[in-house]
């Protein structure tokens, strides 16, 4: 590959992978079965679009299945949201270039719920960070954070450099988090745990081991936990004793006996309440409520549909939900979409709110100051657009959306 026998696109891709691997001391490339990449015009810019088009022109073609993360434009809503027509046209060029390289433009950040579930030990090349931590933690698959160019390179070569979470030594739990005092009744509570644990242990190689939770957590709950750990802590792996496959026991998660010196922390209901109380209400307006980042599963759509049934989003307030084509399609079929649309909720397809093209302009035009969400990840991640953000539980978010009152 490196000698160019498989063409210049493959040569460039593998040379890039070798350079990245060299930084981390990787000794080899390993085969991967699946890739998942971010690639949208908001983050690519003109330089990134030109890169994709050049790679396509050089004959780049994915040799393993590769899917795309959420993008920045739902073309059905672009005009209404005031998104830039020129950027919309470029987004279509991005999609064209990716499809021309055999990339499946699925546009979802929850591929692990909706598209592909790798098995224990399976090596993949996934980004965004929420997909990575879910693959490592919940499935026991092996991946590093693979950004757009890295995941695309993996799909082109069918390989990835073996460093980080491809190696046993980095998968070992590094500290223990006791959840026995936490009720965790709402998805936002799981995100709050991720915030508390992530912020206090910021490191890609910090691997929390959760213990003490008294029921089986649901996939959506582990999704919120993982996304928040990755977002606040830049973490790519976690264990939950008795739940995740590399943590049948605490000793299993720590790869040996439990040292008395191992760091132990606890997150309980009081700590989670402190998280909610920690958000400033800013100017006190409640004109933007967002359910996004990560996209919603079918089960979350059902829950929201029940909470919004018979209600209406308050005048002057905007409420957004983002989900994949598949989840929206199923929601429509099952009758979950109609109550949301009747309430005035804007349901966007294939996007995530925080990456929407022109979001800063949208914020100014609509006079949005506070953004309320039940996702701890999006509350953290949207800051560069100058939102004041507030985390609230799901039902509280619905109440805020329908009353216009921030609590």
């Amino acid at each position, binding site marked *: 590959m490196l000698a160019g026998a498989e063409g210049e696109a493959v040569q460039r891709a593998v040379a890039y992978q070798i350079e990245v691997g060299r930084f981390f001391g990787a000794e080899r490339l390993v085969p991967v079965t699946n890739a998942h990449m971010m690639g949208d015009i908001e*983050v*690519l*810019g003109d330089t990134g679009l030109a890169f994709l088009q050049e790679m396509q022109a050089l004959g780049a073609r994915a040799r393993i299945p590769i899917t795309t993360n959420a993008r920045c434009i739902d073309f059905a809503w672009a005009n209404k949201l005031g998104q830039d027509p020129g950027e919309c046209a470029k987004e279509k060029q991005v999609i064209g270039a990716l499809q021309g390289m055999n990339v499946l433009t699925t546009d979802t950040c929850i591929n692990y719920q909706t598209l592909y579930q790798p098995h224990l030990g399976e090596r993949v090349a996934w980004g965004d960070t929420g997909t990575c931590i879910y693959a490592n933690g919940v499935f026991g698959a092996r991946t590093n954070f693979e*950004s*757009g160019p890295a995941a695309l390179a993996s799909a082109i070569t069918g390989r990835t450099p073996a460093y980080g979470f491809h190696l046993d030594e980095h998968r070992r739990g590094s500290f223990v988090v006791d959840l026995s005092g936490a009720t965790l009744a709402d998805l936002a509570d799981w995100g709050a745990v991720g915030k508390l644990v992530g912020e206090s242990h*910021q490191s*890609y190689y910090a691997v929390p081991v959760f213990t003490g939770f008294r029921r089986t957590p649901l996939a959506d709950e582990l999704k919120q936990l993982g996304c928040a750990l990755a977002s606040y802590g830049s973490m790519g792996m976690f264990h939950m004793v008795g739940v995740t496959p590399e943590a049948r026991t605490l000793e299993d998660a720590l790869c040996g006996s439990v040292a008395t010196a191992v760091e132990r922390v606890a997150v309980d209901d009081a700590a989670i309440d402190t998280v909610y109380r920690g958000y400033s209400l800013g100017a006190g307006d409640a004109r933007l409520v967002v359910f996004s980042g990560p996209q919603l599963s079918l089960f979350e759509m059902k829950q929201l549909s029940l909470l919004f049934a018979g209600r209406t989003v308050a005048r002057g307030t905007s409420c957004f939900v983002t989900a994949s084509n598949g989840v929206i399609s199923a929601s429509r079929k099952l009758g979950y979409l109609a109550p949301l649309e009747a309430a005035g909720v804007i349901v966007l397809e294939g996007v995530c709110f925080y990456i929407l093209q022109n979001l800063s302009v949208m914020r100014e035009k609509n006079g949005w100051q506070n953004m309320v969400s039940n996702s701890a990840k999006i509350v953290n991640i949207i*800051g560069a657009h100058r939102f004041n953000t507030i985390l609230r539980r799901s039902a509280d978010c619905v109440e805020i959306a329908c009353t216009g009152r921030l609590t």
Partner: protein
Amino acid sequence: MSDTVLASVSLARAFGPMVEGEAVLSEEGFSPRYDLDRWTGYITKPGHKLEGTNIKDKICFFPTAKGGIAAGWAFNDIKGKGIAPKAFLFGVTNPVMVQGAVLANIVISEGWSQDPRQVFRTGDWVRVDPARRVVELLRRTG
């Protein structure tokens, strides 16, 4: 290379060409998506320790990386827009930052022999030599 080196810090891992520039030291981690206005080069996240600082052409010291898959493309994007820093020097980073920096050919490093805040100040003129894995103080600010 004949400059007088006033002080230096060794780097554990580094990539890219040798560069010189003005140092910006942060007490807080960094993500191009969470913290940076990628159209101006200013750090705009409310409350970030460097809020209001422009990182264009700077040698940036960040203790940690935050998030975030966006850096893979974002570094290339800000370089194309002419607003990229000359180097990202992290205490602890993540693969995305490295993948992005390699694509954009921006200097990146991880790991310090000592806390750079004890050696350098924002505004100092420093040189980063990835091949020798070192960052050197050439001129003291003020």
